């Protein structure tokens, strides 16, 4: 990534981000883009959603503006606000408005985390109006034809407060993401870390074991991201078991009994 400041809507990805497709997601995304339909990426954390967005932005040659949503994020944070300079007030576009104007791809990561009032701006953009209401400016911004809205959502959360409302989800073309099948995941680990095939296969096997524990004390098994982390540590000379304990077991849980069990699983492999 370059160090110099460039407004995000002018930042085009020029080097192909490595993405290994697991199904027809690239074709579906492209078709959605051509038809100006917004897209919802569903799936657990660390399974390649962000990487997929980077890859698609590169493919479609559009700037990618990513917003990681959190529980204090309001509609104004997305749309924009007035700032005071020396003796006047100036309007500053929020990331969503920038993307709408510039015809970029706006990716709202973990959208259920954001405050509920954000749906007010997301809904009109996500149906065929393709409008961004800018209440404070008293106008509605029409999205440029290249603009695309994408949101992500992790259905694995058990919190009943973090479900995506029907009225929202029914506006989107949904793409389902999950951890890649073993051979593919192994390939990803090899490419991302430079680890040899055998070692990568061991990591993938460990991931499967932790995924078996989902629902029995773990909210999620180890994600592809965690495997990549462990692989990087191993490439840096950390012994495999120690790398996995640090990058995988302790990233998954604090519970002593579960930690002991995952450590035992790690020990079976190496």
């Amino acid at each position, binding site marked *: 990534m370059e160090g110099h400041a460039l407004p995000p809507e002018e930042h085009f990805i020029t080097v192909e981000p490595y993405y290994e497709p697991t199904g027809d997601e690239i074709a579906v995304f492209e078709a959605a883009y051509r038809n100006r339909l917004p897209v919802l990426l569903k799936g657990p954390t660390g399974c390649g959603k962000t990487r997929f967005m980077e890859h698609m932005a590169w493919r479609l040659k559009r700037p990618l503006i990513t917003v990681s949503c959190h529980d204090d994020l309001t509609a104004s944070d997305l749309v924009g*606000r007035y700032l005071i300079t020396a003796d006047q*007030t100036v309007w500053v576009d929020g990331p969503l408005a920038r993307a709408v104007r510039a015809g970029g791809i706006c990716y709202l990561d973990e959208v259920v985390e954001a405050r509920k009032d954000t749906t007010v701006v997301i809904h009109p953009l996500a149906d065929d109006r393709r409008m961004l209401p800018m209440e404070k400016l008293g106008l509605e911004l029409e999205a440029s034809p290249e603009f695309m809205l994408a949101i992500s959502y992790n259905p694995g959360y058990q919190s009943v*407060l973090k479900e995506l409302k029907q009225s929202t989800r029914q506006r989107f073309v949904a793409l389902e993401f999950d951890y890649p099948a073993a051979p593919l995941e192994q390939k990803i680990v090899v490419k991302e870390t430079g680890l040899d095939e055998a070692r990568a296969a061991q990591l993938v*096997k460990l991931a499967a074991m932790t995924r078996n524990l989902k629902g029995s004390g773990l909210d999620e098994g180890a994600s592809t991201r965690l495997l990549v982390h462990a692989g990087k540590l191993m490439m840096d000379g950390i012994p495999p078991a120690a790398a996995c304990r640090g990058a995988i077991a302790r990233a998954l849980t604090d519970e002593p009994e579960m930690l002991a069990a995952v450590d035992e699983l790690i020990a079976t492999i190496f």
Partner: protein
Amino acid sequence: MNSSPPSSDVQLSAAELEEQLDELLEAAFTPGRRTNAIAKKLAAHPAEVQRFVLHWCAVTAQTHSQVAYLFARHVLEALETMDRPDVQKWLLHAMDLYDRQGLYPAIAVLKAPKDFAGAGVDHAQGVYLEEITGVLELFLRGLSGRAMKLEPADPPHTDTSTLFLPSRLGRFPAKDDNFRLYKALAVHQWAQTHFGTFFPDLAAELRAYPDPDKARKLYHLLETLRLDAVLARHYPGLAREILSLRGEALPAEFQDAAAELEAPGAGPKQSLEWMENLLAQPLPPPWPYMGELLPERAEAERQQRLRRDKAALQAALAHMQPGAKPASFSLRRENSANEVAADFVLLADGRPVVLDDEVKGLLHSIDLDLGDIPPDYLTPAGGGGYAPAGNPKEKEMAPPEGGYAYNEWDHQRRHYRKNWCTLRELPSGLGDAGYAAEVLGRYGGQVGQIRRVFEALRGEEKLLRAQKNGDDVDLDAAIAARTDLRCGREMTDRVFTRQERLERNIAVLFMVDMSGSTRGWINDAERESLLLMCEGLEKLGDRYAIYGFSGMTRIRCEIFPIKTFAEPYGPEVQRRIAGIEPKDYTRMGAAIRHLTAKLKEVDARTRLLVTLSDGKPDDFNDPYRGVYGIEDTRMALIEAKRAGIHPFCITIDQEARDYLPHMYGAVNYTIVSEVRQLPIKVANIYRKLTT
């Protein structure tokens, strides 16, 4: 001396002890319970010991007064050979047996404390199964992808459903090594079930030899060679540990057998062949992690499991038929090169259908048992099969007097039986007034922590912007307002910020299993969970209600209000919680429907129905205990979900039952295998659910 009650450091006299024991053990009302002699002996012991004995009598008497009495009678003998932590383990072991197997096995353990003490060689460093069951179960679930049930028994063996392990291992001086031995014993048994040791005719084949016992032992040894090699290929770290536990090397005559059986692709039939070849040789001593191979037990269990799996698979297939007409199912096996697990593609009328985890699990289990999935397993349930007594039409009920009528889902006919169940709300009993204080005292620090965590959850402070009035000027809004004014637009008066507690607006209803199967520790854990929850919820401010449920037959479903939404938490509610007791059976569907209706009346943005049960739908002499009950429960949960309620099921399951994912799969659920962790778990689950 003043007349204050004896402080706990004071040694009690025989008379005082007798009085206390009588009260704890309800001796006056129970013929045959004499505390006189016990009290006399105990009087000679220091205050510390007396306190220890009285404490554990009190704890045990809460649920099993007979066990408590036996404990009191034998505890001094136990203390001669064991230290107090071990005596405690001995008692817990007996209570556990009582819960699982009933009174007689528990009596046997309590009457023979010396046997328990002598179970290990190195007393100090022994490991108890109880201590490590949690870790071991998680480990095995991770390794195998399925739940494994662990039970104490000697010798170690498996019936292919349950892994039986000694209740204590003290073979090695170091604790870690004893744990490793436990792990090796468990993995070895799992490997037997997973890699084909118990092929269908094994028991019969072995019986045919003139010395079946030797044949069995030799086959076991040869299979161990094969299985260890399979493990080494897939789990090298694990295999290293196991091999380090092997004792004597095998005699030279076994070298060829080892070479062949350890090669990839070797199967149990080769072990059988080599067994015949080597039968004339003397039998080498077994290795410590082998336990016993008991094919007869495996065979009996296998038959049962196949019947269950077949019915469950057929029921699941009935759900999966794409159209209204019965479909014809077939299977394609993929990935057969995979030694660990085959993958199946299921075709309905020639087209692949998506398999859920339940069906995958069933196919896998049947495949392990039979080496294949016979076509008759793939006929969906429907015509034929189980037919409930009588014609449901005839028995259709008019809404009963003084009760509520609920439909029940008949999965085979795929329709509701109208007003099939009659449900009544009955007053709940009052328990001991001191119970709540005792429990909260026992959980001491954890109660404080739950209160703190829940307090922190309580609608966090939020800064509301653009308010009509408030504590501070909202700069953004003020600037926007001024701009509007300058431009000649109307100026808003919403220019303040205000600090406000965001209302959570959540209502939760806890539905608690009061069926007979919860007797013992599950009931204790439920009551303790509820008390801890109440402490937390009071801090949090969410509206909540608690109802118990039980019943017998469809016309006697019963609901016991413990706390309604309107009622405040207080001593009365605490006594009702204390009074929750195991009653009859579990017709879960009707209870869920009734409480769903209750919850629907509450005006809240988020409504939660949390069920706390041991997950065994059953009823008196009724098909409700089988697939029928599972399907009705599942349907009732789906109905609740459709009604805008979020059901969440917490199941205490020590038996690793396979149908739970299917029964609860449509909604969120969690399985807690360690009863003792339940109270803390429930609070944690609720916290996660609502943030």
